[in-house]
Each structure stands twice: as structure tokens, then as C-alpha cells.
């Protein structure tokens, strides 16, 4: 029952050859087996959104997928957002608009917002607000996160 399966996870374009049990969540595999600790784990049952990553272009809860289900898929985490020393517009907007305090929820919010805006660049403001209700933040009161994502959305649309 505790047999491990060898597989390769492709995270931010880099292959990680690992061996995990079927029950290993993608979130745990990203952190513990691949050493990419930017992805945070909060509730481990799909409520808080801290572990949100982008799998084949879809923002998903990595605590609700098993690592073995992600083999062969393109996984993107917060470590892959910046281009060298240049932050992704979403990261820069979170800094500029004070969209974080303790920062624990931030990687999840960044991947959620980037994932949705890449799929739906012209998403309207009401729907964007609904999207941001997906994740929990205990510090900011959300207003600055909303400001940051709206600002980054405009920039990502090329305005």
C-alpha cells in the first residue's frame, strides 16, 4: 500500500524526478519532494487557496490533486512568475498597493489572479471580485489585494 511511484513533475519548465505514494498531494510533492517551498499549505482541504498553482493553464488547489495526476502536465508556481530580476506585473502590483502583510497567502493569490487573467483577460470587475473570494487572507482585509489585482489586470491587458 505504501509503494512509491516514480514520476517526473515539470515545475516552471524544470523537470523534477521524484518517487511518491499515490496519496501524496501535489502541494506536498511540490514542497517536500521538489523543494519548491514558495507554494504554501494552509488548510489542506481546499478552503483557503494558499496552495493554488497553475496546472496546464488552469489555477487549481494543489492540495486537492494527487502528485501522480500531475505527471506530464505543466505546473507553474510562484517561483516561476518573475522574469529574472524583473517581477511579474502581478507581483509588482501587490508591492505597490500593499496587497500583503505577512505574505503567507500571497503565492496563492498571485497564482489565482495570474491564472484567471491569462485565461480571461477581459473578465469584468464583478467576476474578478468573485474570483478573489476563492482565497483567504487574514491580514489585509482584501481591499488592497483587490486594488493590486485590478491594477495588474490593466497592465496585463496592455493598457
Amino acid at each position: 500500500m505504501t509503494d512509491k511511484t516514480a514520476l517526473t513533475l515539470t515545475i516552471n519548465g524544470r523537470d523534477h524526478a521524484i518517487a511518491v505514494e499515490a496519496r501524496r498531494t501535489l502541494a506536498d510533492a511540490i514542497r517536500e519532494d521538489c523543494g519548491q517551498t514558495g507554494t504554501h499549505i494552509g488548510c489542506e482541504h481546499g478552503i483557503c487557496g494558499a496552495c493554488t498553482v497553475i496546472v496546464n493553464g488552469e489555477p487549481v488547489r494543489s492540495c486537492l490533486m494527487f502528485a501522480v495526476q500531475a505527471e506530464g502536465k505543466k505546473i507553474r508556481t510562484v517561483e516561476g512568475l518573475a522574469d529574472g530580476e524583473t517581477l511579474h506585473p502581478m507581483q509588482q502590483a501587490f508591492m505597490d498597493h500593499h496587497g500583503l502583510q505577512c505574505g503567507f497567502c500571497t503565492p496563492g493569490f498571485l497564482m489565482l489572479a495570474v491564472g484567471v487573467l491569462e485565461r480571461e483577460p477581459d473578465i469584468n470587475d464583478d467576476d474578478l471580485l468573485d474570483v478573489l473570494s476563492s482565497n483567504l487572507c487574514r491580514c489585509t482585509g482584501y481591499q488592497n489585494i483587490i486594488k493590486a489585482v485590478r491594477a495588474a489586470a490593466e497592465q496585463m491587458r496592455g493598457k
Partner: protein
Amino acid sequence: MKPAPFVRHVPRTLQQALAILSQVAGQDGRILAGGQSLVPIMAFRLAKPAHLIDINEVAGLDRLESDGKVLSIGARVRHAAFHAPVTDNRLAALLTYVARHIAHYPIRMRGTFCGSLAHADPASEWCLTAATLGATMVAMSQRGTREIAASDFFEGIMSTALADDELLAEVRLPLLTPDAKFGFYEFNRRAGDFAMAASLVTYSLVNGKMAQARVGVGGAEPSPRRIEEAEAALNGQSPDDDAFRAAAQAASDAVDPLEDHQTNAEYRRDLVRVVVRRALEHSLT
């Protein structure tokens, strides 16, 4: 908060999936589709399936098509498939509106329509939709294929008519008439949280009077169902505040509400009155 060990099976065809399911059904084998309800209960160890049959690699289960009478929804059609209208029938507008209320965007990327029905959470928006519209469930096993009416499918909290070795391979929803009206309202304390009560209504207008009214209530009883008393209060009436309030009161009187640590029966009965009235008001917008 880590799931217990299990053996994962990855069938590539429906026949393979049914064969494996028939072998492991007796050893608590379960289907894994989107996993957005199953994995959390595994994390809590409320479920400890010894075998999971992952149907994410099975060809053909993402079928989503209309034949002019019904919309057929395959076992791996995800909630997000309904973010935009899937046909030009009025049903598609209903499904798009309801889909927005299901959990959150990332959950809707993975969770499936059929998985939601097979899980049969009392608060499920899709279970309410299936019960209200009179869906037909297509259950497949190695023993054969059978169709189950929505009214026979839901048997209680997280309990359905599916046998252990049956896969809910497809759900068929009847299309709506072009002039059909629909309304939906769900009450919960936080955006995306489980509904404490929800209502879906449909009707058509004949000479300005409501006809073929369907009033569904979910989240309030162990299973979603149509409330005949409320439908009777609508049929033949004009779609106005008096009729809506009468139907809402009839629904409230008819339900046998669930109780939990935050809601007693009286409170939930009152919520039913509110959600039915608001769903009916939504039908006019």
C-alpha cells in the same frame, strides 16, 4: 490532514474503468473524477478508500452535447465547462447562472457535474438542478446500463441509488422551451460556501399565467426535491408578488428541515421561504 494510503488505478477506456470498479467495489473502491469533494473528506480521514479509480484519463467522458431534446453531460465534464453557455437553448443560461454559485473558480476548474451528483451533498447546486429539472442519470457497470430518474436517485445525505459497482457515466437534462423563465437563489454566510438553503424555479407563461411550474429546494432537507405544494400555488397565477409569496410560504410549510450546530429547523424553514421567494423574483429579471 493527509489521505490514508490507497491503490490508484488509471483506466484509459470506459470498459477498463468498469472492469476495475467491479473488482474493487467490494473493497471500498471509489471513482476519482475532479476530487474536489472526495479529496477533502479523505484528508479528514472521513473516507479511506482502499482503491481509487482515476477516470481523468478515460477517453470520451468529457462529452457535452445536445440532441435537440436533452443535454448530455459526460462523467468528466467540469463545472467550469458551464462558465459560458454550452448550447443556444435557454437551459444553457440557467446552467451558467447556477455554475457561478458553485464553490470557487479553482474548484470549478477540477470538480465535475456528475461527480457532484454522485457525491450527493444536500447543498449541491447541481443536485438541486437535476432534481428540479427532472434529470435522467445513466449508471453503467459491467452488469449493464440503466437509467435512473432524478426523483429515484437521491436517497439521503451523500447517498444515491448508485450501486457500489456503478459509474455515473452521464446525466441528461431536458432542454427548456424558448420562453421558459428560470430563477435561482442560494443563501450562505460566505461567498462560495455551502448553501444553507437554495431554490431553483422554472415555469412558462401561458396568456400571462404561470404554467408547468417547477419549484426545487436544496440544502434544506437530506436531498433536494421539487415541492408540489409550491408549484400548485404558482400554476394558473400571474407572476406577481402575491403568487410568489404564497408559493414561498407553501414551500416553507412543506419542508422537513435539516438541523445542525448553526441552524435549527425553524431558522432553516424561514430560509426556505426566503430563497424560494427570491428565486421567483429572480425569474423576472
